[in-house]
């Protein structure tokens, strides 16, 4: 199962698996995000490349509007994959 919602301090929590099945849910949620936002990945079990594509597309829109996403709670493997893929150049990691 996949879930994406804002918690009390406005951080966006991703839970479960973000793959081809759950991609539309994430895309629609992030389409409504404006300005700066913090994404917490600590409860996310898996993110497929289609999920990464959605994050990059959202980042493009937010950066163009002067905002941006901060990625937090990244597990060691996912952090390594994002660094290898060169995502450090466009995202802020915490």
């Amino acid at each position, binding site marked *: 199962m996949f879930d994406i919602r804002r918690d009390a301090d406005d951080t966006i929590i991703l839970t479960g698996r973000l793959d081809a099945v759950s991609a539309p849910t994430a895309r629609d949620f992030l389409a409504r995000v404006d300005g700066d936002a913090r994404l917490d990945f600590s409860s996310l079990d898996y993110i*497929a*490349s*289609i999920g*990464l*594509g959605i994050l*990059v*597309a959202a*980042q*493009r829109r937010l950066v163009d509007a002067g905002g941006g996403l901060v990625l937090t709670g990244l597990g060691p*493997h996912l952090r*390594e*994959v*994002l*660094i*290898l*893929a*060169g*995502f*450090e*150049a*466009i995202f802020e990691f915490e």
Partner: protein
Amino acid sequence: MSSNDAVTPLLPVLRVLLALAPVQIFLLVLMAVDTFKLVRPRRVFVALAAGVAAAVLSFAANNALLPLTGWPLLTFALVVAPVVEETAKGLYCDWLVRSRRTGFLVDATLLGFAVGAGFGTAENIYYLREFEDPTMTTWAIRGLGTAVMHGGATALFAALRHLAAVLGRPGWRTWSWAWPAAVCFHALFNRSMTHPVAATAVLLVLLPLLLLGIHRRGERNLRAWLGRGFDRDRRLLELIREGRVLDSPLGRHLLSLGETVPPEARADMLCLLRLEAELSLAAKGMLLLRENGFATAPPAEVKEKLAELAWLEKSVGRAGRLALGEVRPRRGRDLWQRRLLAQEATD
């Protein structure tokens, strides 16, 4: 001073613009729709130059063959010239595909069109110098028709040649699709020169549809390859990182090599696979970012990793590389993506 006098000095400029500008504009549009920026401007210039070279080669060949055939010029233009010219233009495109310098229909078509555009431009410059034809229609036909036809014919050749390579056709048979298609496209246009304006109009309607259709198919394949490949490379990296390789098919394959490959070479094989996965993620990540307008260069350490990979390939030796053959990703695209990274890392 009458209005004609005012226009007269502009005629040479208009003539040059009509003859040379359309095919270059066409090429710029193809470069603009290249969402993943697979083809850098420098490579387009080299392809244009290859087209000019093909024009010089064809000019010499046609001049030598024309008297030998004894045919009237029109017959020669219909039968022999398309064969000579599409072969000359096709040589560079064949090298691009054979040496894995094209990875998808997107870059193959774009570079093919650039070769044809170089050819058409060189041909029109020659005619501009040789023939003082006053009628603008002639230059409109040559610029909007003939030059664009040359670009389209070679783009068609490059796309079909690429497809044949991806489908694993052996070298010489890859020309059996691409070459006749380009020659027929070229000869058909020459044949329709009895109605030049209509032929040029039909070309200007059909060719964009054909090229953009090929381009869209190429980008769809690229996206699918990106997604599949990214997830596969990640899983491999995860297996290696978490020390679970030996439970996987890959690990069992490495263990099954027994004494055929010395233990130290097997360790290097694992390092090679890990490094390939990391470089593959770097290439795919770069393309994913570019698709969304982030023009980023690959991470700094890519250059050292490429050097280390080359060393590891030598270290595991031919036996090791053959043994890895079954578990390594598709070699063609793998080499192309490595070349793409190396090119970007040195830019």
